[in-house]
């Protein structure tokens, strides 16, 4: 039920790549074919495993994994009914939260002789993308927790002529020298996509809401 009444999205503010909510998602490239094992860990303590099969012959180039547990209705991946298995070709996997107010992180490792961990969403790496949607107008501080880089994000109230702008996110990059802009503006509901060029962990938290001024 997506009813406006009591929808948890209204209880969220800010976004954090180390603790994903409905307002944040991570897109992670997985180019090496193979079988990967993943573990989703919720702040509430719940934990579940999944398998990601990357097959060079699979035409799908991405898979979306709902950390809150809902299986995608077909599309970019195929899911085994008995075990949570996602299949795709070399491409990208998207970790997102489709419901609830819990916060999640995810670990991904090779399921072969090496058992090497290849990704932990708490530490983004080169080629990752962190997607955030900020709803409440105001001023936010974006911090790279890894390198302590900062930027100011202004979330502007949605205007009558802004609808077309919502189709495209504001794109910002974050590398070893910090954010590509120190200040940037997004419209409430508009996506903010941060392209990662070095190890990073991003937290976007409110400094002052617009309605605090009233």
């Amino acid at each position, binding site marked *: 039920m*997506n*009813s*406006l*009444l*009591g*929808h948890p*999205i*209204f209880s969220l503010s800010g976004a954090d790549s180390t603790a994903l909510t*409905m*307002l944040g*998602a991570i*897109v992670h490239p997985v180019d090496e074919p193979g079988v990967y094992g993943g573990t989703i860990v919720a702040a509430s303590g719940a934990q579940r495993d999944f398998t990601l099969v990357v097959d060079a012959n699979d035409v799908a*180039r*991405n898979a*979306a994994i*709902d950390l809150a547990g809902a299986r*995608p209705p077909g599309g970019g991946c195929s899911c085994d009914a008995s075990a949570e298995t996602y299949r795709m070709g070399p*491409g*990208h996997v*998207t970790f*997102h939260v*489709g419901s609830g107010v819990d916060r999640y992180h995810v670990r991904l490792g090779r399921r072969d002789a090496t058992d090497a961990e290849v990704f932990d969403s708490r530490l983004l790496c080169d080629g990752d*993308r962190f*997607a955030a*949607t900020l*709803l*409440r*107008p105001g001023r936010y501080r974006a911090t790279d927790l890894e390198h302590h880089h900062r930027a100011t994000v202004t979330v502007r*109230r*949605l*205007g*009558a002529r802004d609808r077309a702008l919502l*189709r*495209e*996110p504001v794109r910002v990059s974050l590398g070893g020298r910090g954010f590509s802009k120190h200040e940037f503006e997004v419209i*409430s*509901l508009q*996506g903010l*996509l941060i392209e990662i060029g070095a190890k990073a962990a991003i937290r976007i938290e409110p400094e002052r*809401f*617009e*309605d605090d001024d009233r």
Partner: protein
Amino acid sequence: MSHVTLAVSAATFKHLFVFLRDRISYSKSDSTSWGPFTVNYSVAVHLADGDVTLNDDGTVEIAGLKAIWDSLGVSLSFTLPQWCVGGWCAVPTPWGCAVRLPELCVGGDVVSIHPNLDGLESKVTDFKADLATVYFTDPARAPGLTDVAAEQAGTPNKWQIFLHPDRVLIEPIDPIGTAGNLLVEAMNAVIDDVLGPLPDWAKSLVKDIIGPIEGFIKTVFGIADDIDTWFQNLLGDLNLVADLETAVAQYFAQQYPLHEFPDPYPMLPWEPATPLPVFIPLRNLAATVNSAEMVATVDVGNV
């Protein structure tokens, strides 16, 4: 030549009309689906005012009669549109979007708006009638009951005089100039109600998404032209006025007579002290009006 002629002055006739008018109570409720939305309605009407004119051609005209819509409850139910977060391209390539973020959609609540139309008036623009007489046999009268016993039981046969409208025309429900405002007010009210538990910033956000309320109303109900005209057409399509015209005509013509006489007429009703009652059979009741009075004629006995 008739045996008995009764005359009722125009002033008394007016009292008879007022007595009937004030007893009309019409109500109706129903619902109907109009594609993307559903309309429920519940109406209650009474009549007021009205100047009675008796004409020499045997007709009765009522001018200035009004239908008062004591309650005109119309509710329009529809689904609030969803709005979505995400869905945009995270990994664009020269060949198209490689990764599109999943959409998270909110909304889709079914809500109803209730424009307040209570207290509207519709003029009865044409009410012209003549008088009609009807012989009424009470269906509650037991078979084989004598006339004296039927009189005692309160189920005598009757001659009745009805005001028989040739036509009743009522002007359309006319919230012209305000219909759009009524819908806007009702829509604002329901949105505030739906969003009530949300924090103020979230209310503002959803209202920003909805945009100008007039445009939103047009979108939700598929209104191509102006809202006033659309709403008035909607009320017309519900046939509320046509049904009321029929109900008013039937009320006067069939349900409540201006006057009635038991048949046979108890000239000397039965009472314990009057062991020999006298009943006179009435035949051939006729009634008409002229500009001064209502005149009823009747024959007495088995004519």
